[in-house]
């Protein structure tokens, strides 16, 4: 309660004057950060469920992938994963800039993130082809597509967010809170890329270890 006490000192008698408190904060202090965290929890659960389905269905197959289905090819997904890891420091840099309220830098950062996200989406298209199976050929195809697709929705969402934030930073009236938005967007970015690395290991590497 010390903060309350001190706040009361400066305020009029019997009241806490909060007019001196800041209006923009970052990280766990800000509500939007917690909101982002909430959505990450829900979407993370969704990805987890797809992974569970993938492993559950596996028990019905002698061969994984099934006999006549080739292994998923590695090139594109690996490039994708590498690119994602590469993008993390860029976003970290952007986040730092945002916390220092450096408009110029975060403009650059969000443009870069938009480009990255666009690249991810394009690569994702080829990742679907890299599975060498169709969603409707058998259960293996279904779960493999499900995992990759579920994560694709994150990519598309992030692409939309990056583009609109970038557009806002250039065109729109920038308010202080938008620095916090950029910061949260970076947080989401870590989740998006990090979760893919795991799913990449599951869908593209684990079948190799099995066969």
């Amino acid at each position, binding site marked *: 309660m010390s903060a309350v006490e001190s706040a009361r000192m400066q305020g009029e008698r019997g009241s*806490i004057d909060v007019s001196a408190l800041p209006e923009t904060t970052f990280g766990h202090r800000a509500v939007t950060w917690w909101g982002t965290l*909430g959505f990450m929890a829900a979407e993370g659960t969704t990805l987890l469920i797809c992974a569970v389905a993938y492993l559950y269905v596996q028990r019905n197959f002698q061969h994984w992938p099934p006999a006549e289905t080739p292994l998923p090819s590695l090139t594109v997904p690996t490039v994708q994963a590498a690119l994602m890891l590469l993008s993390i420091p860029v976003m970290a840099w952007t986040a730092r800039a945002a916390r220092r*309220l450096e408009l110029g830098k975060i403009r650059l950062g969000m443009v870069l993130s938009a480009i990255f996200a666009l690249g991810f989406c394009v690569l994702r298209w080829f990742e679907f082809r890299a599975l060498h199976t169709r969603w409707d050929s058998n259960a293996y195809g279904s779960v493999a597509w499900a995992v990759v697709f579920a994560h694709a929705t994150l990519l598309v969402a992030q692409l939309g967010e990056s583009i609109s934030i970038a557009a806002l930073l250039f065109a729109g009236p920038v308010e202080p809170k938008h620095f916090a938005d950029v910061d949260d967007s970076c947080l989401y970015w870590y989740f998006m890329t990090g979760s893919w690395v795991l799913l990449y290991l599951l869908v593209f590497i684990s079948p190799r270890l099995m066969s």
Partner: protein
Amino acid sequence: MSAPITADPAAAEPEARASVRELHETLERTWSDRPGLLGWLMSVDHKSLGKRYVITAFVFFLLGGIEAAMMRMQLARPESRLIGPDLYNQLFTTHGTTMMFLFAVPVMVAMGLYLVPLMIGSRDVAFPRLNAYGYYTYLIGGLFLYTAFFLNTGPDAGWFAYTPLSGPEFAPGKRVDVWAQTITFTEISAIIGAIELIVTIFKQRAPGMSLNRMPLLVWSMLVMAFMILFAMPWVAVDSQFLAMDRLIGTHFFNQAEGGDALLWQHLFWFFGHPEVYIIFIPALGYVSTIIATFTRREIFGYPAMVLSLVATGFLGFGLWVHHMFATNIPQLGESFFTAASAMIAIPTGIQFFCWIATIWGGRPRFTTPFLFILGFMVTFLIGGLSGVMVASVPFDLQVHDTFFIVAHLHYVLIGGAVFPLWGAFYYWFPKLTGRMLSERLGRWNFALFFIGMNVTFFPMHLLGLAGMPRRVYTYLAETGWGTLNLVATVGGVTIAASVLVFLYNVARSLANGEVASSDPWEASSTLEWATTSPPPAYNFAHLPVVQGRYPLWSRTVDEPVVTGLRTDQRQLLITTLLDATPDHRHRTPDPTLWPLVAAVATGVTFIALIFTPWALVVGAALVAGPLIAWGWPKPKPGDPIVTEGVR
């Protein structure tokens, strides 16, 4: 007790009075909705949205009840030809779906969205526009289900929609797709509601309301929100798998192509069991609140109560397989889930004992809310005990999927959730509307409901033991089930009567009910009773400062209040997570139409998805527009604008 915190114009000296009135007017201008229908549609106020949420959920409760009544009519006599199997299957499926997805969970979330900001002394939820989006998504989902139902496209594979019966081969047409998409709608709104509650409770508590001073209801809402966050996605994904199996020919549940019918059941029940506690835990919060008020005693053993809530929340995730005992699962697994299912009785037991201790120590006032709480304890206990019984595998294999289970689940859900909820309606109705409900009618409502509920569902225990399976549209006369079914139907009529009494009571009170003071129950302990009934758009003229678990009881004369929040724009006070010390001021958005537009776009997308997968592509674009418009800033003069080179 003591005067409401809202500075009362009549109190202070003339000039002070003038300034106070000015303060109220400015706040009113800043926080109230725009006038007219458009303003109503644009509202992002947690109170007006919360009220709509509760009313919508209650309407769905009535619809579900009507379906139940029709089923009871059909089952009243053996070999009855009132309703054929086709309609009957749609009825019980829609009844279950409505009660679980359109009533029980939404109404609990709605009560939270209305009450929590008031109880923790804040002015709105964390993300008001998201809140509006969540509500409209839910509304569209519900309307969608019922439109389909009246178009003879009501889902007919059971609210659990087991594959392959719900799959593409055995469920032709679009009925099951309607079910799957309804689920998606309600999951989205529930998850949004959960995030709202978590963030609001974490970051917006009045100064001094540290975690260990949070009202028990707020605790229960917090636990419920976390359960929703981690349970709901399971059924959302599951139902999407089903929709894909039916629309684009995937094989998630097609045994012949390596899929698995049991995968459906595992994913469904991993949500389905926590669901029960999502419905039950907020009810525990109502019980604690109401008991405290009407015994004038602090709930005994606050730490034990909180720990029990949290424990229930965790254990709730460990029981899902006890819905699948009949499907050849390994012995070891069975034993584990039996033990877990029995264990969850312990935290509930602890809370029961604490409540009894509280009542013992106090002097109860037998108001309608308190009666409903007594009704809760007497009926729910039966459901709890039969719950421990069905945790046993051998016994469950006998009564699983029989009317014994129907009896059990209704004792748990009606006894455990609807009784407290009804108590809550009577308790908070004055706060929501500013008018009291009639106590006399309230007693009738309670008596009829209590009798009707037990007459309807108690015989079903025996019916189940006598071999009557669930979800049968009729039965042979020689089974001997006729009498008990008739009794149950009579009970159903009694329940209907009690509901009518309630509706009449509400109508009467709204028309010319006794006007409610800010604290009509005298001795309420939580902050929502510190402001007028109904609360002003801004909830509190000065945000309160909390000095105990029961702030209105521990209040002193020169109670400190919060000053210095801007009154000319919507500003919230954000406090720290653990001990709620003031941290910063948060600008919260003004009313807008975009959440509604976005919700409609979402709705169109999901409904179109029943017919073509391409709806996803079109829909994504369709939804993106409103979302961007929704987030795009419209600064007013005087708002800080950042320009190049800011530091």
